[in-house]
């Protein structure tokens, strides 16, 4: 049994879908042909929708989808804007996630379902996912594979204690199992963009990419003020953020509470989070105000201790840290 063309339309990043492109012997300069205009326009719209923080939901036949996916990657690469790379990767992952949940829920042929799981989880990410022998709507993943992924999620519901665990497996529904690999899928697409080497790109594509870059390039300059004043943990997190990395919740909490404690304004802290690929100003502002004790339970949150940060792999202690027990003391020491 093999995946069909309808699957390539939904999951154009699969190795099998790439084979379709290879067999069609398509060169970049062929994007100049008049019939490709529709594809390039569609790709540009797809990127625009994603840059606005939405998932592009339109789905056409596989030839269109695979070419649109490729065109979008080329456009994104041509923008040379890191934040666009990251955001496009994340929203492409979320688009595939929505299709996959639907397929795993509705597909009645277990062999087909198993094949999808294999092609996406095993082939791309080396993770084995099985269908529960007792219920085809339930999936199971090795407990260690689960822990590696779930421990980055903040919500209590992802803690393994709130999951069914048996025989070395964690039992999950379709939505959960797919959500677990979102970051990996996003990184996978991001690496595809990074690895692309483009030459002889037709002018219309270059123009489209320039338009996208102009429209979605960050309007502010991301400058870290007097970075030497920050403790290494905060500096490391800020460095990653400036590169558009998707920081875990715990790291965001550390940065926000630290900045609040050293007297930064809510506005300036919100700005710090701008480069995050999933940035949403309204949500970010609410969360920072919550940490500041201005919203919700009115509790002001403290900066996590060094030992807490160490246990969360957020500590990057250097000799300058000395014996401090909280990142805030680093600043006081420097002063």
């Amino acid at each position, binding site marked *: 049994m093999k995946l069909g063309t309808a699957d390539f339309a939904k999951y154009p990043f699969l190795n099998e879908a790439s084979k379709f492109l290879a067999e069609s012997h398509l060169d970049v300069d062929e994007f100049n042909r008049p019939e490709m205009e529709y594809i390039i326009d569609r790709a540009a719209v797809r990127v625009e929708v994603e840059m606005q923080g939405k998932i592009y939901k339109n789905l056409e036949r596989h030839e269109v989808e695979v070419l649109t996916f490729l065109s979008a990657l080329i456009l994104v690469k041509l923008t040379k804007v890191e934040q666009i790379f990251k955001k496009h990767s994340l929203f492409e992952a979320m688009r595939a996630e929505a299709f996959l949940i639907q397929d795993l829920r509705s597909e009645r042929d277990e062999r087909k379902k198993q094949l999808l799981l294999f092609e996406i989880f095993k082939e791309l990410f080396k993770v084995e996912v099985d269908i529960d022998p007792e*219920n085809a709507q339930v999936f199971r993943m090795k407990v*260690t594979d689960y*822990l590696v992924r*779930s421990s980055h999620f903040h919500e209590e519901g992802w803690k393994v*204690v*709130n999951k*069914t665990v*048996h025989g*070395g497996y964690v039992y999950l529904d379709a939505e959960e199992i797919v959500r677990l690999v979102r970051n990996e899928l996003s990184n996978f697409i991001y690496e595809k963009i990074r690895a692309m080497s483009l030459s002889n790109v037709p002018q219309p594509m270059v123009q489209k990419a320039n338009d996208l870059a102009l429209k979605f390039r960050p309007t502010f300059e991301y400058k870290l003020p007097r970075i030497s004043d920050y403790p290494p943990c905060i500096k490391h997190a800020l460095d990653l953020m400036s590169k558009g990395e998707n920081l875990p919740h715990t790291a965001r909490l550390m940065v926000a509470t630290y900045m609040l404690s050293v007297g930064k304004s809510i506005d300036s802290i919100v700005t710090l989070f701008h480069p995050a690929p999933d940035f949403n100003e309204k949500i970010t502002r609410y969360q920072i105000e919550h940490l500041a004790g201005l919203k919700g339970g009115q509790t002001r949150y403290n900066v996590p201790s060094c030992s807490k940060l160490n246990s969360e792999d957020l500590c990057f202690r250097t000799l300058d840290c000395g014996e401090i027990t909280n990142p805030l003391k680093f600043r006081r020491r420097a002063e």
Partner: protein
Amino acid sequence: MSNLWNSTSDLSFVRNAFREYYFKHNDLVETPSRINEREFGLMTFQTGMTRHLSFNNIREVYATLIRNTPSDFYCSNAYYNFPTNSMQDKGWKGADLIFDIDAKDLGLSCEVTHRYHLCANCGEMKDSTDGPCPRCKNLTVRVESIPCSNCFISLRNEVKKLITILTDEFGLGNENISVYFSGNSGFHLYIYDACFHHLDSRARSDLVGYILGNGIGPEVIGVRKGANNKVSIKFSKIGFRYGWSMRLARKLRIDQSSLSKLTNLINKLGGYEEFGKYIREYAKEIGIKIDPQVTIDIHRIFRHGGTLNSKSGLSKLRCVDLNKFDPLNDACLLSDTEVQVYVKPSNLKFKLGGHTFTASHRKEKLPTYAAVYLICKGLATTI
């Protein structure tokens, strides 16, 4: 000199007993897997802790134990590229998963009957933790415990409960689990399954939460929070077949047809928040009482198998058969040459090395292993 030792003669006596042990029983000192990738550490009787040591083979370990006679000898759970470098430059490659179950964490009622208070400065006996030392007026207190047979029965049961979870729920084979008596008042469980080696602190913390029952919420049985402390219940397709959902379903006496029964129960308890509290308390009660920090720490050094524990003079030993292992006999391997010591508490009764000793606030002739045991706990001193 460390405050642990009341006098240089105590220190010297215990160190000689330890040295004799390492001469006679170096065959008991275990060879860790991937020895050259481990960090070792040792505590000397006088100068404190030395870490970031490395050995290429077990003969080098034997030589160090005999030459230096440390009070305690440790080996990392982690494997490193460069074990002797500072922590951030070691190059972490993975770590064994280790659990620690100690009598002090079990909340045993017998503990008060064998707990002793000593001045942390001069070692004088005190009646309680309150007030200054009657001799030196120091306020710092050292609390010591002589674990009894009830402690070990409870510890053994807790270890068995942990093994059941690890095998049934985490799918570990018994061959990948080793149980060690810690050499004092607890047990260590080592998990050798390579699948767990690469887990970072965060993942281990999540795993620890599962074992302890920490962080559990009503969602585990499909109860979600609605508006105004109301709930919505949607039983999972997975059912209540295994793990925590099974344990809670049993406690609540519900199955997948008990929607209205569960709704009534939640309402009776006062809504979502109260139901959550009820579940958390139950999970805490039946969760395994492991020390979370020990398992979460991926850079920790652990007392090494076959070496002596300076809190007792007993050996840390692997329990081949947990049911038959008697810590106060099997791990008591110092010599039985009799020595005279001064026993501080009145009416002290303890079992060790297959004998029951009754000592009372006076000079006593005791076998070396019993004398070391009491001196290590600050309850006796050499004469």
